[in-house]
Structures are given as C-alpha cells and as structure tokens.
C-alpha cells in the first residue's frame, strides 16, 4: 500500500505509456491475429481454389480445343459423307463429278477428292490443283485409305507433307452399303492450323496438336509443324502419350516446361478417333496470375487491415487513456497543492462522471482550504495581536514589578531611614526647646548678673542653638528627600480600570496646585485647562497616571517659578495649561508651561533616572524617568516633549484608548 502513496515518477511514466501501448497492442494484436488467420486461410483456400480453377479451366480449354478440332474434322467428315450415301456410285460420273466439285467448293480444306469403287479402282478424281481425272481405274485397293476405310468405315490417315511444307491428311470414308466404294479426300491441315492458331488460350497461351506418335500436327508456329518435329520426348507431351486415356476425361493439367523451356500450365485432350492429342498451354505466370493477384490482394488487405487496426487501436487507446491520464494528472496536481485544478473530460462515460466527482471534491477542498486559510489567517492575526498584547502586558507587568520592587525597595529604604531621621529631627527640636528653657532657667536664676559667665553661657547657648537649627534643617532636608522618594515610589497597587480621564487630570491639577501652594505659600500660577469631553473613559492605572501628571505639572510649576525668580520679573505671568484631546485610538494629554524651557542636552537626558536640573536636595531625578516608564511601559503610550529654551515646555502624553484584552476570542481591532 505504501507504494501507492509514494509512487515514483518513472514507474508512473512507464505505467502511463504502458496502458496505452498495451491497449493499442492488444487491439492491434487481436485484429492482426484475426486478419492474419483470416488472410492466411483465405490465401490458402484461394490459392488452392485458384490453382484448381486454373487447372480445371485449362482442362476445359483443352477439351474445348479438342472439341473444336474434332468439330472441324467432323464437319469435313459430314461434308464428305454426302458422297458416301447409298446409290451415289450409281448416279453417273457427271453427277458424281458435280458432287465432288460442290464438295470442294463447300470444303476449302479438301484439295483432292477420289472415288474408289468397291474394288479399289479409281473412278473419279477431282482436284483443285491437279487436273481432274475420270475413270482412270487405277488400283488403290492395297492402299491404306481404301483398305482401312473398307474395314473401319472411316480412316484418318497420318499426317504427311506435300512439297515438304504442306501438312496433309487423308480421310477415307467407305460408302454406305456393302462394297460400295470409298471416297478419299486429301485435307490440307493448314486449315486445322488456322483453327489451332485461332484458339485463344488466355493472353499468351496457345494450343497445338500432336499425333499419337508425338509428331507435331498443328501449331501456331507453322515452322515447327513443317519441320515435322518429333515432340514425343518433350516433357509437355511425353506424359500424354504414355498416359492418355483413349477417350479423354480427368484432369491432365500440370505445370511443365514447353519446348521453349518456359514454364507453362499445360493440359491436353485426346481426339481418339483421329489419334490426335490437343494441347493447350498457358504461361504459368499468366495461369497463376489470378492466384498471385489474390495473394497480393489478400496481402494488401491484410496490410491495410493491420495499418487500420494499428491506427484505430492507437486512436482508441488514446481516447481511452487520455482521459485516464488527465484524471491522473489532475489528481497529482491537486495532491501537490494546486487546488484550482479541475479536470476537463467530456467522454460521456464513467470517466467523465469520475472527473466530475473529482472536480466537485476539488472545489470542496478548495473552499474549505480557503475558509481554513482565512480562519487560520484570522487566528494568526488574533494570535499575533494577542501575542503583541501579551508581550506588552508582560513588559508592563515586568515594568510594574520592577517598579514595584524598586518601589518596594525605595519604600523600604525610605521607611527605614524615616525612623532614625524622625528621631534626629525630634531630638534636635527638643534639644532646641530645652536650650530655650535652659536659657530661661539661667536667666531667671542669674537675672541681673552681668558677668562674663552669663554672656559666655549666652554665647554658647546661642551656638548650640544654631547648631541644633542646622541639624534640624538638614534633618528636614533629609526627611524631604525621603518623602519625595516615597512619593515617587509609592505603589498604588491599583488595577487598570476605566476612569474618566478628564476627572483624573483635573484632580491631579488641583492636587498639584494645592500641594505646591502648601509648600511655598508665595507660589502663584495661572492654570488653564481645555478638556475634550470626547475623552470620556479610558482604561488606565489611575494612581500611576495621577503620579505622572503630578510629576509633570509640578515640574511645570517649578520651571515657571524658576523663570519668575530668575528674571521673568513682575511682568512674567507663569501659566500652566493642561488639555486633553480624544482620538479614535488614543487620548492625548498636554501639559504646557511657559517656564524656563529645556535645552537639547537636557531633552536628551531628561528621562534618564536620577537626572535632574534641580539643585541638590530638591529633586530625586526619578520623577520623569518613572513617569516615562509608567506611560510607555505600563500603559503602552507615548510621552513626548517639546520645548523652546527660555520660552515654554510642553509634554504630550498619548495613552492608547483600548487595550486588547488577552486570551479572549476577540474581533479585530
């Protein structure tokens, strides 16, 4: 099963080709097999048939030729027969001559006619070339024509040649009746030659006649005849002479070599009564032409069939395999992640259905994928935001903790120092008071004493008082420092909650103002506030923000006070303006004073811890640093400063309006 999951590319490619090829080959093979079997069988059958047909036809031709020749001779025979009827010998010589002349005219083949009477004496002779002879009474009784005719009624003589070049044959027919005589006719076999020549045997075939002895009687090539050729040994003729049935029948056709050495299909038919054998020969190539033709035809058809099968098979295979391949490809691509992949198949069959289902599945996958992606995106974004928030919160927490621990530390220190300081101050004050009482006691005791001791006591007492004053003074200073520290590092420990920011601002302002006035009664400043009602409720740590505001406002007070003291003069009107402004995502608090302003060097360092422009003992240098941390780290806001040396200083605090709460399913921003 694992192989199905991780199919290597080459195997797939092999498979892909294989299917189409397999199918095509199978188809081709099947068709080829059928065709080959069919073709071979056909071929064999048709060859067999054609051959048999050729042989049969050849035999038929031979028979026909023989028939024709026989017919020809029979014609002559019947013509001669006219003169052999009974009573002919009694008709009178003139009539007989007339009959003979007419016979000559009717039968161009006959050259000479002889009437031999019952004893073999020539009574009449009519010739085309020779002069007619009447009543010569020459004795021909011993000659074969007379003798044989008398015996067998009809005699066909052997072929002989006149002038060495004209083949002739004697036909002798006995007259009807007993001892009535014989008509002897000399037949010019040239006419047979014409018949033989006229016999069409196919295209290049021919017929010829041989005598029983194998002598050529008639042939289209007359010269062969005239040479009185003996063909009894010819391979074409020999078998006929040895095996010929006297009355023919059977198939004698065979492929032999003729006198020229050519391969011919030869058949023969005997004309028994003449003692002739008629041959018909057809060049083997021509005879077998139909066979070859059918061979070629079958072969061509087979070839064509194979080609068509091949083409058809390939096409069909492709038709079938291409959709399957497409399916495969589509599935691959889908598997690789191309979710937009759709398969286009319109074959109108199960494969199309499969493709449609596939497409449906793919779209569903795509949909859910997109949805998933969107969801994942959303979640990721949320998570990122949450992470951001968490980090911020973490930072703030850390900051708070730091602050807290710092605060705790400083608070701890402060508290610890406070106690001894307390005693220092108290006892110093008490001591001062006791000195006063001492002075009184001394005065009461030594009133009027006007000696040096009184004045020394008085001097000493004054010095001790002065010392104690200094102790008290420095003690108070130390106390003040501690208080400042405590003030700055006091941990409200409050939670972030939604408070009316404007209210906090106002409260801070008041606090600061009253506080400043309580410390320095001659402190005066003009306050302005411009609070945007749209600010409304903001999520903050109220105590910390209050501290920040107090810090900044008191810095402002200090700056303006300084300016006034330094040279602002009576004309200078110290002002501090506080404003809030609401924005969709934040609120801004501005604190502007027209005090001494800040130089660039100061601006750079002002948020550093323990940096202060106040003289020693007046500031801890922690205020701005703490404020910065509260605003930026605890609230995730900004604190900016603008200033022109000698003119003004403006602090802008930007607090983010809504803080995303961590770990809750939140909408976007």
């Amino acid at each position, binding site marked *: 099963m694992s192989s199905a999951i991780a199919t290597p590319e080459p195997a797939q490619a092999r498979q892909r080709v294989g299917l189409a090829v397999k199918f095509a080959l199978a188809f081709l093979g099947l068709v080829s097999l059928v065709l080959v079997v069919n073709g071979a069988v056909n071929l064999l059958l048709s060859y067999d048939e054609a051959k048999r047909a050729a042989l049969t036809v050849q035999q038929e031709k031979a028979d026909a030729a023989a028939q024709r020749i026989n017919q020809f001779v029979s014609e002559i025979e019947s013509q001669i027969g006219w003169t052999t009827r009974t009573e002919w010998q009694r008709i009178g010589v003139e009539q007989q001559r007339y009959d003979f002349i007419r016979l000559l005219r009717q039968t161009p083949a006959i050259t000479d006619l002889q009437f031999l009477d019952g004893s073999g004496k020539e009574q009449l002779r009519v010739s085309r070339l020779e002069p007619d002879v009447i009543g010569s009474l020459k004795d021909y009784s011993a000659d074969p024509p007379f003798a044989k005719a008398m015996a067998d009624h009809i005699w066909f003589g052997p072929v002989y040649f006149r002038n060495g070049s004209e083949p002739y044959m004697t036909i002798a027919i006995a007259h009807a009746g007993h001892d009535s005589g014989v008509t002897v006719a000399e037949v010019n076999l040239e006419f047979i030659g014409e018949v033989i020549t006229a016999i069409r045997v196919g295209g290049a075939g021919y017929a010829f006649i041989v005598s029983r002895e194998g002598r050529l009687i008639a042939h289209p090539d007359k010269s062969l005849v005239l040479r009185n050729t003996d063909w009894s040994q010819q391979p074409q003729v020999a078998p006929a002479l040895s095996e010929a049935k006297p009355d023919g029948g059977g198939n004698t056709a065979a492929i032999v070599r003729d006198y020229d050495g050519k391969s011919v299909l030869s058949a023969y038919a005997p004309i028994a009564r003449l003692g002739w054998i008629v041959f018909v020969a057809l060049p083997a190539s021509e005879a077998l032409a139909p066979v070859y033709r059918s061979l070629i035809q079958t072969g061509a058809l087979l070839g064509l069939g194979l080609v068509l099968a091949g083409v058809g098979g390939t096409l069909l295979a492709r038709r079938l395999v291409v959709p399957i391949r497409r399916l495969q490809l589509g599935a691959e691509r889908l598997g690789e992640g191309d979710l937009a992949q759709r398969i286009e198949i319109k074959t109108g069959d199960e494969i199309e259905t499969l493709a449609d289902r596939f497409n449906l599945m793919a779209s569903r996958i795509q949909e859910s994928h997109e949805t998933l992606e969107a969801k994942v995106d959303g979640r990721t974004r949320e998570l990122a935001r949450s992470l951001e928030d968490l980090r911020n919160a973490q930072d703030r927490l850390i900051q708070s903790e730091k602050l807290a621990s710092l605060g705790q530390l400083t608070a701890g220190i402060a508290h610890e120092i406070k106690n001894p300081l307390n*005693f220092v101050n108290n006892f110093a004050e*008490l001591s001062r008071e006791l000195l006063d009482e001492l002075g009184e006691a001394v005065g009461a005791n030594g009133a009027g004493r006007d000696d040096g001791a009184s004045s020394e006591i008085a001097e000493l007492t004054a010095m001790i008082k002065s010392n104690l004053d200094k102790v008290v003074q420095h003690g108070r200073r130390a106390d003040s420092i501690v208080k400042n520290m405590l003030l700055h590092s006091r941990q409200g420990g409050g939670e972030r909650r939604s408070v009316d920011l404007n209210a906090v601002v106002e409260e801070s302002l008041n606090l600061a103002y009253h506080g400043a006035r309580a410390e320095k009664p001659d402190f005066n400043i003009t306050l302005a506030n411009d609070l945007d009602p749209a600010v409304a409720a903001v999520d903050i740590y109220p105590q910390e923000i209050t501290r920040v505001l107090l810090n900044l406002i008191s810095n402002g007070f200090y700056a303006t006070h300084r300016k006034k003291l330094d040279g602002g003069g009576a004309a200078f009107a110290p002002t501090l303006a506080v404003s809030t402004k609401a924005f969709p995502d934040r609120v801004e608090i501005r604190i502007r004073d027209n005090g001494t302003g800040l130089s660039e060097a100061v601006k750079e360092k002002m948020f550093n811890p323990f940096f202060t422009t106040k003289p020693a003992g007046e500031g801890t240098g922690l205020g701005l640093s703490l404020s910065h941390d509260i605003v930026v780290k605890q609230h995730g806001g900004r604190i900016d400063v603008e200033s022109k040396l000698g003119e003004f200083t403006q602090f802008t605090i930007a607090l983010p309006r809504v803080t995303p709460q961590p770990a809750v399913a939140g909408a976007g921003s």
Partner: protein
Amino acid sequence: MSVSILVVDDEPDVIELFRQRFRRELRSGAYVLHFAASGRDALVRLAAGVQPELLLILSDINMPEMDGLQLLREIKRQWPLLPVMMVTAYGDDERRCAAGASGAADFLSKPIDFDYLKRRIQAFSPAAPSW
C-alpha cells in the same frame, strides 16, 4: 483626671522622645505615659490593668512579632471602647483603610505631628488641660 496613654513601639528612643515632648505635661502630672515595647507586652499590661485608666493607646504598626494592626484587632476584641491610634512611617492608604476597618481611632504618620497629636488627645479628653 490625668490623661493616661499607652505608647506601643519597638523603638526604645520613642520613650525618651515622648517624655521630652510631653515634659511639661508630665511634670505637671496632667499626662501619664506608659510604654510597651511590643504588642504582646501591651496586651499583658492591659490585661493586668493600667492605672490610671487609659485614655487611649498609641501604637506603631511596624513591629516585629505582632504588628500594630494585629494588636489593634486584639485590643478591639477585648476592649472595644478603648480608642487606639495608629502611628506609622508607612502612610499608605492600604494600611489606613485596614486600620480604619479594624477600628482605629486615627491614623498618624511619622514624624509625629505632636501638636496635632495633642489636639487629638484633647478631643478624646475634654478634661485635659490645653497647653
């Protein structure tokens, strides 16, 4: 009638401080000061009975063992009518609230404002002479 006050503080110098601050009153006998160094000690003294009768108790909050708030609760449990004022270096709201919730009569931060203290004592004892 003398104003009888019990001061509870683990710091020994507090005794001298109070004695000097209230020297005139002590000299005149208007005030009688008692001192306990720990909450436990204070409870023991209270249980034994303090003479003259206490007007109020001043207690520090930050003390080892029993802190001032615990003492306050204890005192209030046993002697609910006895006013207790808390004195501490830590002036945070939390302690203030806790003290108030536990029944503290007042909440003073160090360094003690003795004038204020004298006034508050006077408030509790109108018979006490005002100096």
